[in-house]
């Protein structure tokens, strides 16, 4: 599909995309680590928010800084940085989430020399009034830190525009989720994943326009998919394995929803464009579905998963975790149990590193589809 071309191109070499962007715009590029990054403020500052996912290259340099019991995201990102693959970055933003990211921020600050380093120490609990007040102050502080660090001014008008673009992006992405669910023959999950990965890297104005075109091109019905695939919901941290979708599809499954940091958690929730903008931004990050490193009640994630399974008439769930991801691993037993009570089968797949996991996943997926 030609409308996907641009997204595929970006994903094939995100670093090159950022370098070219920098050359053309003379703008700054700000790396960031998770979907709690209030990208809107970075966009409003004129910089490009660049999601760091790790290129998947072999770890050698990072081993001198991180123990082997750190996840592949943390080690992979540091490896990329130490190897100079992220030399186009002007700074990095670390929203506080898990213990590993918390320490990566320290190690990164001490051993890399990007001009700008920001820790966004957001609240961990998100379900109280005082936490919301604190979240607002974190957003306000981040705005000031960006202004000082990048030597610019973020105006309310600029911020409003950035919020509008981000809402447009999220609306389009949400529409793509809807299309995949109701007419999976129009967009494959692997394609949607490519779009999402590109969305976290591309110039957001350019992205909003490209997404709009893509959605339009997918609104027209096309020759159907005769197969009746097993409907699956994926849940976990971030998906660093593009192959996973192809493997699932070739095993007779179709992903109809996900609860990934690189998926629905990035897409869900909009920001009000009127009123106090900082408060509005804070509210989106407070109210959207939680990452397990945050707290919003003891059943928040289990309930969300069950709701998505029911809403999408899913046949099964695949938990996809990065090995050594503590927050997700702690939630797994109760979420699995909640699914079992509703008669929903599930499977857990831990990704150690991208290279070695493919064959194993293929076998496990095929067995799981058989069972469904």
């Amino acid at each position, binding site marked *: 599909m030609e409308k996907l071309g641009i997204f595929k191109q970006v994903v094939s070499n995100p670093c090159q995309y950022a370098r070219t962007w920098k050359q053309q715009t003379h703008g700054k590029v700000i790396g960031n680590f998770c979907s709690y990054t209030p990208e809107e403020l970075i966009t409003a500052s004129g910089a490009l928010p660049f999601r760091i996912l790790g290129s998947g290259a072999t770890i050698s340099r990072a081993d001198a800084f991180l*123990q082997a019991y750190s996840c592949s995201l943390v080690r992979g990102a540091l490896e990329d940085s130490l190897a100079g693959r992220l030399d186009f970055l002007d700074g990095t933003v670390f929203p506080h989430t898990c213990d590993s990211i918390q320490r990566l921020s320290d190690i990164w600050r001490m051993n890399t020399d990007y001009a700008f380093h920001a820790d966004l120490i957001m609240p961990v609990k998100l379900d109280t009034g005082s936490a919301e007040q604190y979240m607002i102050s974190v957003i306000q502080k981040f705005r000031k830190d960006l202004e000082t660090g990048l030597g610019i001014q973020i105006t309310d008008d600029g911020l409003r525009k950035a919020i509008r673009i981000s809402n447009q992006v999220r609306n389009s992405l949400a529409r793509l989720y809807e299309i995949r669910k109701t007419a999976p023959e129009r967009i494959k999950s692997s394609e949607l994943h490519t779009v999402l990965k590109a969305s976290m890297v591309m110039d957001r104005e350019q992205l909003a326009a490209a997404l709009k075109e893509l959605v339009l091109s997918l609104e027209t019905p096309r020759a159907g998919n005769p197969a009746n695939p097993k409907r699956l919901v994926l849940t976990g941290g971030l998906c660093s394995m593009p192959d996973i979708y192809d493997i699932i599809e070739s095993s007779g499954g179709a992903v109809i929803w996900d609860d990934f940091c690189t998926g629905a958690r990035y897409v869900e929730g909009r920001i009000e464009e009127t009123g106090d903008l900082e408060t509005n931004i804070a509210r989106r990050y407070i109210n959207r579905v939680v990452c397990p490193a945050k707290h919003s009640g003891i059943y928040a994630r289990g309930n969300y998963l069950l709701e998505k399974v029911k809403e999408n008439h899913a046949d099964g769930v695949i938990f996809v975790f990065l090995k050594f991801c503590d927050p997700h691993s702690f*939630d797994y037993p109760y979420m699995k149990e909640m699914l079992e009570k509703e008669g929903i089968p599930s499977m857990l797949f831990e990704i150690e590193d991208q290279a070695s996991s493919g064959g194993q996943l293929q076998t496990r997926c095929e067995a799981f589809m058989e069972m469904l």
Partner: protein
Amino acid sequence: MSSAEKVKDPEKEKRKIKSDKKMRDLMTAYYIEAKTPKEQTGKKIAWITSGGPVEPLHVMDIIPVYPENYGAMIGASKMGVELCEKAEAMGYSSDLCSYARADIACATVNGGPIGGLPEPDMLICCNNICGTVLKWYEVQARYYKVPLFILDTPICHTEYNPDMKRYVTTQIQEYISFLEKICGKSFDYDRMMEVGKLSVQGQKLWQEVLDTTMNRPAPMTCFDAFFHLAMIVTLRGTQTAVDFYESLLAEMKDRIAQGIGMLAEEKYRLVWDNLPVWYRLRWLSNKFAAHSACLVADTYTSGWCSSMKYLDENDFLGSLAEMYTRIFLNTGTDIMADNIVKMVEKYEADGVVFHSNRSCKPYSLGQYDIQRIIQEKVGIPTLMIEADMSDERNFSESQVETRIDAFIEMLK
């Protein structure tokens, strides 16, 4: 037992810490009270994290119980592997914290040391030590179906700012309201003043006890501190803890006066970083002692007085937020490195032993940087031991032994 075996080595007897027995008795009494049926004590039970503010619980006559202290007991009694395996069968990954795994498994069986912990009426989770406790306490809140209070203490990578202060201070009030609601009585602020004073006194005494190892020879080692720590963790804010540490301090001063060291010979002085390896305490202690290497200080046991400087004895409640937010584990790796450098200087250490603890990421990630900083700033050798605090499966005796031997060679 034959009469020959009854004859005790007077040299060894002299070096034994006499307060050990008192400590054991006090901890037994504490656990007996905690395990007495609630109808008899009339007291509620709170499970609380090791870094959590326990003082308001004492004000409310709630008995604090520490699953982490229990995790240490599980490790020391070598029940860690069995319980961890049980948790793994429940679906918990073997990569998760071994305290959490063991405690989660223990809750579901009638077993473990002292036959399990008394059931909680509430859970108090302060995330100043790690994000793991949040997930662990969520698990227990679902299991026991009791209220969970989270004291969210933002990590101070480089600073403690006014926004953080406002947030944590507000939560201290929320914490008090939470306790008032559960206990059905109002909070006694006068009593808080008293408990606060006892807490400060206890912390000061504990620091003084730890400081006695500045003496050569050191009257105790960190292996003794690991044992005597339980009191400042569990009974901080009580007269019991103050009295005990007063007598322990007196004993240490007496040992110094008499020139009694814990080791027969003290050639090298070392600092320990991270939690103890509970199931190999004796082995490690003997191993170092055999080389005449004395572990004079550690970052772990001093953690309970690491933020005392932020505490205002006369406004305990008002300074509580800052004290609990700025404990050393809740700060940046470079601040933690400075802390160790200062300890090396203060205790005149010849080397640092790091325990790279698979169970504790916030404590362990960053240790490689700290090693480099120590080498740069003080130029002394360091040793990295790969292990786990309670899960013995992650300990290779031969590997650790080889590393210790090689490390001692570097000290010579």
